[in-house]
């Protein structure tokens, strides 16, 4: 700061800085701007304007020259970014070398390096947590007790649900609390059949409509955001020009922009957070490497929200070194980067369905059926800890006879026959965070911006293997009871992280000795820094995590502004 004039410093100074523009960063931006704070939102990737920057959104299948498949030269350029390797979604993939990382053990790290982040890539499932989840670590003796309970977050779930627009059915299940719902998307014949079979045969197993962030019936608050009803295109991964589902781009960022308080700065790779040696327990700003010029610059603010996605937030804090914090910002406990966890999506059970041939579906379903966790819910009943939820979906395809050549083949192709119903379920298991599963900085290698590479060191445990087996057994049993045929259960043995739900490393807790963040997502030892993305998660539960990140972020932002007003920050 010493070499800058007062005016120059002023130009680089804001009330708040938000690192990251994804699902949680967007919420931080909206809340802080709405409360009158001049807020700088830093995004390491390029800008993506809602509507205009979804290049494939309105293309028909025949508009894609390779029908979705990517040319070999493009595949080579993008290397490991496999999940989005399709012509329609290539715009969200990152090129090989953009941010390399060191896989000490195999770990799939999917990133969304553009404005909106993974809010343009998510599955849009939004299930609330319950106290079965918040009380999990304390009851089952792992990780550390969550500093909050369901009652702390419930009003914030409602708050974000009303704004984001969540479709769902009120099911009255204690393990899956009801929310502020727009009309649900229907279950299909087979999902409803399974629901009835489970209700008849079990006390505690249910199939419900997956709660999802789709505007089935937009309310005035959604029209005010410029969004419109979901048209069931199911082209969500290309970006939705209608804003039919919730994304930062369609919702929170334009809302923040409209306050006049937001400065959005793309191509800004955050290097570290600057610790304020003059004001103990406070940070003064962030160091940013410009994505184009590679020049380092500094921005200053009273509060800093870290929302750069779970592992990137760990990386930034680990790289924020000062004489006070030689091991990373706020890291007196030595736990920063540890207790990384994710979701276990290894199991899949699919089957064919006999019957229902007089029934079909019409239109397209952007959601699916959902089986909330039933294992070890009220008491420990298996030889593994915790449990799993399951997605359930399926439908009726058509059959094309592809035999022969010439006119016969053509006639078959042009008259597809309705096929049988099929059903499929996918596992969403809780992994138990352990100290050994961690990320840290590589001591030698650096990325193109001069930032140390992240080392991922995380692996499955015996608990995960047992859970996959139980999932396969239980789903097979339930499918058998439902009369489904040709049931196939499989364990993909995919690498950790393939679920794209990596969490932890900067966990919340009650005690600074055993956690990094307090119950307001505030670093115990650096009060004006808040971490509200996946990094803050003490445990993982079984629910898709984004809704909980949104609620935690809105809650923390509200707290931060109040603390600022009280001059506590």
């Amino acid at each position, binding site marked *: 700061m010493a070499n800058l004039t007062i005016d120059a410093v002023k130009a680089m100074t804001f009330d708040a800085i938000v690192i990251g523009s994804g699902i949680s960063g967007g919420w931080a931006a909206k809340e802080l701007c709405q409360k009158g704070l001049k807020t700088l939102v830093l995004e390491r990737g390029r800008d993506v304007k809602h509507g205009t920057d979804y290049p494939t959104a*309105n293309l028909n299948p025949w508009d894609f*020259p390779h029908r979705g498949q990517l040319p070999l030269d493009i595949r080579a350029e993008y290397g490991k970014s496999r999940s989005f390797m399709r012509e329609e979604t290539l715009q969200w993939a990152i090129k090989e070398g953009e941010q390399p990382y060191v896989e000490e053990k195999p770990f799939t790290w999917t990133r969304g390096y553009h404005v909106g982040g993974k809010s343009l890539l998510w599955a849009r499932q939004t299930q609330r947590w319950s106290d079965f989840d918040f009380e999990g670590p304390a009851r089952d003796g792992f990780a550390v007790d969550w500093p909050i309970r369901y009652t702390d977050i419930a009003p914030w779930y409602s708050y974000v649900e009303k704004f984001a627009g969540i479709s769902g059915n009120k099911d009255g299940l204690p393990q899956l609390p009801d929310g502020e719902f727009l009309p649900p998307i229907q279950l*299909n014949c087979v999902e409803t059949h399974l629901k009835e079979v489970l209700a008849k045969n079990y006390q505690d197993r249910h199939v419900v409509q997956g709660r999802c962030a789709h505007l089935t019936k937009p309310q005035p608050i959604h029209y005010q955001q410029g969004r419109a009803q979901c048209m069931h*295109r199911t082209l969500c991964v290309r970006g939705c020009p209608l804003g039919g589902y919730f994304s930062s781009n369609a919702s929170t960022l334009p809302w923040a922009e409209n306050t006049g308080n937001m400065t959005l700065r793309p191509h800004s790779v955050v290097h570290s957070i600057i610790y304020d040696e003059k004001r103990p327990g406070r940070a003064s700003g962030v160091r940013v490497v410009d994505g184009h010029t590679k020049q380092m610059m500094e921005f200053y603010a009273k509060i800093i929200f870290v929302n750069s996605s779970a592992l990137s937030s760990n990386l930034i804090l680990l790289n924020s070194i000062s004489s006070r914090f030689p091991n990373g910002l706020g890291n007196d406990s030595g736990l920063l980067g540890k207790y990384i966890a994710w979701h276990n999506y290894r199991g899949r059970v699919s089957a064919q369905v006999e019957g229902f041939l007089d029934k*079909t579906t019409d239109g397209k*379903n952007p959601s699916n059926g959902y089986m909330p966790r039933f294992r070890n819910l009220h008491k420990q009943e298996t030889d593994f800890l915790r449990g799993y939820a399951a997605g359930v979906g399926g439908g009726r395809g058509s059959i094309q006879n592809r035999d022969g050549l*010439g006119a016969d083949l053509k006639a078959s192709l*042009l008259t597809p026959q309705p096929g049988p119903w099929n059903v499929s379920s996918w596992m969403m298991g809780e992994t138990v965070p352990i100290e050994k599963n961690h990320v840290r900085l590589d001591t030698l290698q650096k990325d193109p911006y001069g930032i140390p590479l992240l080392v991922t060191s995380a692996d499955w445990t015996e608990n995960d293997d047992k859970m996959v087996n139980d999932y396969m057994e239980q789903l097979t049993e339930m499918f058998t009871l439902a009369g489904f045929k040709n049931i196939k259960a499989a364990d993909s043995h995919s690498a950790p992280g393939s679920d794209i739900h990596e969490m932890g490393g900067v966990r919340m807790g009650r005690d600074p000795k055993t956690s990094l963040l307090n119950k307001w997502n505030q670093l115990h030892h650096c009060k004006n820094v808040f971490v509200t993305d996946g990094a803050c998660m003490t445990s993982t539960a079984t629910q898709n995590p984004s809704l909980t990140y949104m609620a935690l972020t809105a809650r923390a932002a509200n707290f931060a502004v109040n603390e600022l007003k009280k001059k506590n920050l």
Partner: protein
Amino acid sequence: MKRRGVIKHLTLATGAFFITPSWASRWSKASAVSEPGFLSVAERDLLAEVVDTIIPVTNSPGESTPGAKDLGVHLFVERMLADCYEKPTQQKVINGLKAVSTMSTESYVKPFEQASTTQRLAVLTRMANSTDTNQQEFLALMKSLTIQGYTTSEYVMTNFYHYVMAPGHYYGCIPA
């Protein structure tokens, strides 16, 4: 008609958003056609006849349905082979086309392009059932790419498969 209303509305709302990114410059039809592939002009013409034999023009009373060549499927097949397949596969296709040509000349004393429909089908059927795995693989690849290109064409998707980009609804269980 309600469905039409929905689509019209969608077009109004999103009509301005057809912006192609720089990495997708190969998407325009003109460039896809004029861009030199890995085939010679003669090979390209032969490929067109092969895909058109796999899915030919057919006539039913009062109506003619286009075949693969009419819908430009041979250009799609060449583009796929040029961009998405390795060199050895491309060479296999060139060899396969040569074999088609040779078999036609040897059996019927005329080039494949001038052979009758029955004769052409006989050539391709022999390749499909050949003991030579190269010929089998060539025909399997031609057939699968031709089916892919044909069934994902605008003509077939809109006229036969009732393709609708934005149905506007999902009914989970209705009479078939």
